[in-house]
């Protein structure tokens, strides 16, 4: 308990944990893929930010720039038969299971070729065959669904898990607390992943809860849990591996909380420092220094796994992909008008 409290104190101080990651002991290919995926997510979201600012995107986008280590560190322990759920801020989650820029962009633009066939936009994403079951903007709405999906996995004799990405705000919804108990008592192999970015829209967690770590709710429900540096992709990966594998093998739930920070404001492209209560420009600048991609890339430079030039090439390659995916998506068709009514029911009538 006290270890956790000490760790938390350090984690919420952005001046800590700014050093590059120690990559020793990892396969280069693993590191490379991890960096690649994180960079893909980052650049895709930067594209969304600028297109939203420009006005090409009509609906809101909730960006997870700065939080990529959570999605990527976790997803490296998942497979396509797992059942992952997200919320309003889930570009990173769906891309970490399948970095298909075109489908994401098409969806955000409301096109038939998007992840949700244009019916969902940024806040309602689905890619079932790659393990991403769905995200929706009602905060905590998918959490009990993940418990059910996990329960189904167990009932069907698989060792797949259900997983819910939630925020430090979502934990305040009663249904999340019910879900923890339910997952424990059934039991159901549900992985609760809290991306604790210390904010629920404009409100700092200290204004909403008596403590700044949410693991205590897992404790209360006797759910295995751990607190990690959410901007250290290797730590997220390693530590969550143990708990996720336990869940797979035992059919029981677990809870992984990573402390992280978003660079943008709650929604869209603005950094909105001034509208966040207890969110200062200074904090944001410090947090930029704990950037998860920078920490990994510099770690890899220092260990001479890739060169800066290599990394520049990766960035260029991804940027090219992004441009061509965007252009394709822009040209794609919208759902035809009949889809408004034909997708409501499963057409049994």
């Amino acid at each position, binding site marked *: 308990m006290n270890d956790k409290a000490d760790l938390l104190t350090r984690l919420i101080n952005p001046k800590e944990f700014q050093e590059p990651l120690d990559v020793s002991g990892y396969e280069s290919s693993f590191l490379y893929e991890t960096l690649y995926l994180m960079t893909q997510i980052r650049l895709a979201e930067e594209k969304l930010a600028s297109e939203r600012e420009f006005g090409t995107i009509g609906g809101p986008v909730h960006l997870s720039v700065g939080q990529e280590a959570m999605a990527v560190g976790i997803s490296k322990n998942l497979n396509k038969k797992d059942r992952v759920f997200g919320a309003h801020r889930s570009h990173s989650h769906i891309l970490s299971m399948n970095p298909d820029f075109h489908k994401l962009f098409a969806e955000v633009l409301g096109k038939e070729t998007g992840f*949700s066939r244009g019916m969902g936009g940024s806040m309602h994403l*689905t890619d079932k065959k790659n393990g991403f079951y769905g995200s929706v903007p009602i905060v905590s709405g998918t*959490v009990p*669904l993940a*418990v*059910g999906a996990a329960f*189904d996995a167990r*009932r*069907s004799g698989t060792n797949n898990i259900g997983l819910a990405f939630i925020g430090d705000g979502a934990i305040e919804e009663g249904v999340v607390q019910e879900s923890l108990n339910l997952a424990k008592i059934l039991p159901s192999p549900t992985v609760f992943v809290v991306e604790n970015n210390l904010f629920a829209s404009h409100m700092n967690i200290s204004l909403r809860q008596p403590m700044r770590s949410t693991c205590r709710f897992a404790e209360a429900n006797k759910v295995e849990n751990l607190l990690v540096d959410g901007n250290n992709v290797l730590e997220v990966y390693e530590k969550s591996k143990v708990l996720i594998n336990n869940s797979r093998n035992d059919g029981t739930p677990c809870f992984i909380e990573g402390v992280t920070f978003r660079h943008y404001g709650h929604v869209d492209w603005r950094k909105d420092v001034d509208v966040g209560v207890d969110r200062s420009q200074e904090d944001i600048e410090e947090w930029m220094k704990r950037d998860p991609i920078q920490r990994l890339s510099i770690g890899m430079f220092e260990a001479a796994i890739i060169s800066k030039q290599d990394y520049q090439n990766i960035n260029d390659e991804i940027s090219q992909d992004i441009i061509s995916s965007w252009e394709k998506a822009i040209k794609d068709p919208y759902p035809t008008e009949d889809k408004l009514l034909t997708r409501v029911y499963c057409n049994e009538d």
Partner: protein
Amino acid sequence: MKTKENYGSAILSAFEYLLDNYPEVFVIGQGLWSPWYVGNTMKDLDSKFGKDRIIDTPVSESAVTGLGVGASLCGSKPIVVHPRIDFMLYAIDSIVNQAAKWSHMTGAQSHPGITIRGIINRGGEQGAQHSQSLHSWFAHIPGLRVLMPYSVADARDMLIAAALSKDPVMYIDDRWLYDTKDELDPISEKSISEFKPKIIKYGEDLTIIGSSFSTKLALGASLELEKERISVEVIDIRTLNPFDSKLLIESVKKTKRFAVIDGGWKNSGFSAEVTSSIVESMEPNQLLSKPLRITLANSPAPTSKPLEDIYFPNISSVIRDIKANFFL
């Protein structure tokens, strides 16, 4: 070979059929390990099919319902049981924001084929929070299917169809009907879209429309009116959402008068839907009389017996109201 059933045992038969034939079916809700929670409708299911398929739960309606939605996205066919609709108010998000909209939001790539069994359990001086039938609410929500069986056969067959449907279904049964008896044919699976409104008694002078227990009132009243040479057609709605009013319109074009009985409140209730969907589909002069809605009194359910007696419509109050409206 026909079998004798009552409404309650017919529900039990449906559960047994589903559990016997569909390993994907599981049932979850409060009271499922108790023999007295849901009448005889789930008797001994837990010992017969195991406590891992018949699952009793903590007092957490919201998460339990959401669990059903999530499991249904993966191939399970869950039936979530709420022993009272009143308790479901904690589960509204999972039903209305998640289940009802899931297919549409995901471009019809994934369907929550969950069945939510909500039981109407009222009367007996239990009062405002142990009485509600919010079927009108669920009828209002695109994406939900809402079934309310009146007949013993429907009580069984609709539950089976609901469980096998790929859409989220609210199956609402009424404890006041559990003792209704009938002889049933062997089970044969029906598609959920077959349960359209149905004429259960033919007549010429007036159409009375009901669902669930209200259909029983309609039938009871019509038999009395018949004695006074008033020929009544009775229609049982069965499916409130998606709602198909064709048959009602045809009937009213014939009888030229109609009344609706509904077990909910009047304002923006299902009785208003029935009324509106008829009047907006025929020229006014095709009606001989203004229509009538018979519903609960405009108050929460009382507990005191004398107030309860006037709160819920009964056969004689129905006859009284019909005679007054149609000058019969």
